[in-house]
């Protein structure tokens, strides 16, 4: 099992947001997490990634049988956890190339590999850009600086391709995208998918799941996973709306 979350409780500034989450993800699987705004989807992603604003008050997260709570944010990343941010931040003056080269080589170092030379790195970057269908010169620009919403999301997918994670969590990467951009994001996931990795796709809409076919769909509501099922659950949700969930709880 790649990820095993048991009875996870987390709070921020004393307010409990996650109220007992259980989730199991195996290699090769795609899980979708859906739910209304403000129910804790991003919080869950942040807690898995290790953001220290959030306090885990109960429960545990095992990743590759390791207790994630003992690992720093960067160690989790180097262990293969990737978070595609709902709101990617801008880092002025730092080129994407430099940023990614630093990241790739830090991760390689952690894994006992030599750093990539400038040439090897640029080659890799070109390949990955092709893979995720990025034609623009995103990589010459500063990290997310002045990027449109769509460019930011594509840039997250590009970074995911570069870092080749074992567990990728994509937080509403589809929000605000037109259909073309949506396809780029979905294709990225589908191309990067292997029997050795897993994806947790957080989405507000069923739309993305027409392109990324999930093995499991979970509904997160008020800090709990209140319903789990196969891909048909997404359709049911779309049809009945989140009020259906709200009425049941």
């Amino acid at each position, binding site marked *: 099992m790649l990820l095993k979350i048991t009875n996870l409780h987390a709070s921020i500034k004393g307010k409990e947001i996650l109220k007992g989450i259980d989730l199991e993800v195996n290699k090769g699987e795609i899980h979708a997490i859906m739910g209304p705004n403000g129910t804790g989807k991003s919080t869950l992603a942040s807690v898995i*990634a*290790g953001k220290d604003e959030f306090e885990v008050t109960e429960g545990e997260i095992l990743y590759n049988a390791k207790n994630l709570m003992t690992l720093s944010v960067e160690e989790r990343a180097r262990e293969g956890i990737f978070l595609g941010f709902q709101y990617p931040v801008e880092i002025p003056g730092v080129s994407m190339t430099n940023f990614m080269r*630093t990241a790739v080589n830090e*991760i390689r170092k*952690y894994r006992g590999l030599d750093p990539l030379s400038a040439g090897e790195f640029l080659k890799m970057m070109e390949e990955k850009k092709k893979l995720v269908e990025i034609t623009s010169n995103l990589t010459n620009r500063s990290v997310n600086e002045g990027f449109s919403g769509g460019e930011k999301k594509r840039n997250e997918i590009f970074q995911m391709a570069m870092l080749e994670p074992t567990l990728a969590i994509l937080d509403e990467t589809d929000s605000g995208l037109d259909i073309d951009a949506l396809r780029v994001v979905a294709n990225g996931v589908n191309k990067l998918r292997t029997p050795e990795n897993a994806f947790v796709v957080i989405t507000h809409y069923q739309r993305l799941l027409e392109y990324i076919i999930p093995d499991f769909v979970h509904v997160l509501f008020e800090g709990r996973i209140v319903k789990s099922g196969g891909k048909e659950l997404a359709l049911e949700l779309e049809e009945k709306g989140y009020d259906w969930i709200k009425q049941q709880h």
Partner: protein
Amino acid sequence: MGSDSNNFISEYTSGEYKYGFHTEIDTEFAPIGLTEETIRYISARKNEPEFMLGYRLKAYRHWLTLKMPTWAHLEIPPIDFQDIIYYAAPKRKPELSSLDEVDPELLETFNKLGISLDEQKKLAGVAVDAVVDSVSVKTTFSETLSKYGIIFCSFSEAVQKHPDLVKQYMGSVVPYTDNFFAALNSAVFSDGSFCYIPKDVRCPIELSTYFRINAANTGQFERTLIVADEGAYVSYMEGCTAPQRDENQLHAAVVEIVALKDAEVKYSTVQNWYPGDKEGRGGIFNFVTKRGICKGSNAKISWTQVETGSAITWKYPSCILLGDNSVGEFYSVAVTNNHQQADTGSKMLHVGRNTRSTIISKGISAGKSNNSYRGLVRISKNAVNSRNYSQCDSLLLGDKCGAHTFPYIQTENKSSIVEHEATTSKISEDQLFYCQQRGIDTENAVGLIVNGYAKEVLKKLPMEFAVEAQKLLSISLEGSVG
């Protein structure tokens, strides 16, 4: 940056000052304290012509009438000027014609600093003048340069070999009456670099001076004079380090630049004097007067500085824009960490018509440090159609440090435009989290973000310096976040 800096940082994860070693070199000293006798001693050691001694003594007598300035946003502990050694020289043969004659210990020192004085092995295209304590020990490439008529030598040598040029220009930009530290320097200065680029010559290589304080209890008072004749061009770089000691050491330099008609001088500094320890013990007091004059029309002077060292920095590289259409630029990154204090900025004095100046200042404060920008833009009555653009940004790391901006603007005509912008920002938790989520640890993330923030200035540095400066920025901020 990137992986290079990461390697570099992991090598120095302790965050200790890398250049803090001290070399046992046979050194000769002037008697401690400052009197006319000290000045006569220095002048005699250097075998100076009469006019130099006269200049020194006049400066000394003027200095006696002055008090240390107190207007800067600095807390300067009292300095006992009688408890300083004003002249320390590595003992050596008086004339050095080849590298074999340089004290091997000294060569080793420069190797440790990553500066090779060996011309063969040198980075192509950089001529170095190396100054230890009070004396210039070796100037490389002088012969190559002399083919172009370029003079690049120690100040002492210039006094001997080119007294007329020295006499003509020394003190013409920074007179000894200018301020307390300039007067002190003019009285006791020991060595430094001299550079003259003849008419219409473009200096084919970067010139650089490397300053090193080695001996204890000594002050360093170097003096640099750069003269670019009509239509000449030169890019000059200056670097500095000092051993780690518990007591403070004084460094009071004067740099003068003269750019004649159509000439251009680029002056770059990476200042990394010992900053003191984490509790604020020791470190260099860096009180420096740097000024250039664009004497003729279309002249241009550009200052770029990366200031990471020193316990206290007091420094305002300035431009007097006398010639019509002349241009002055000041690009600065000043980093303060722990208990460091910096009060730095620039003065742009517009005198000629259509003169233009740019000031870009990036202050970065961490720890309990204090970092101030102080700038004066004065546009005189005759400087019609002149322009200044100033941008002063402050970046705060943590909440115990301070950033201050003191802009002074005086405009005496209506056709000129002065623009001033200032921002203060912090490295956000979200930026750090974003980097960390990509596998980059906090130290490296801060390094990346800070280098990105300072990019506008760093890109003005010559290549040879830019890489060094980037590493330095990251290292001087180690341990400041998280």
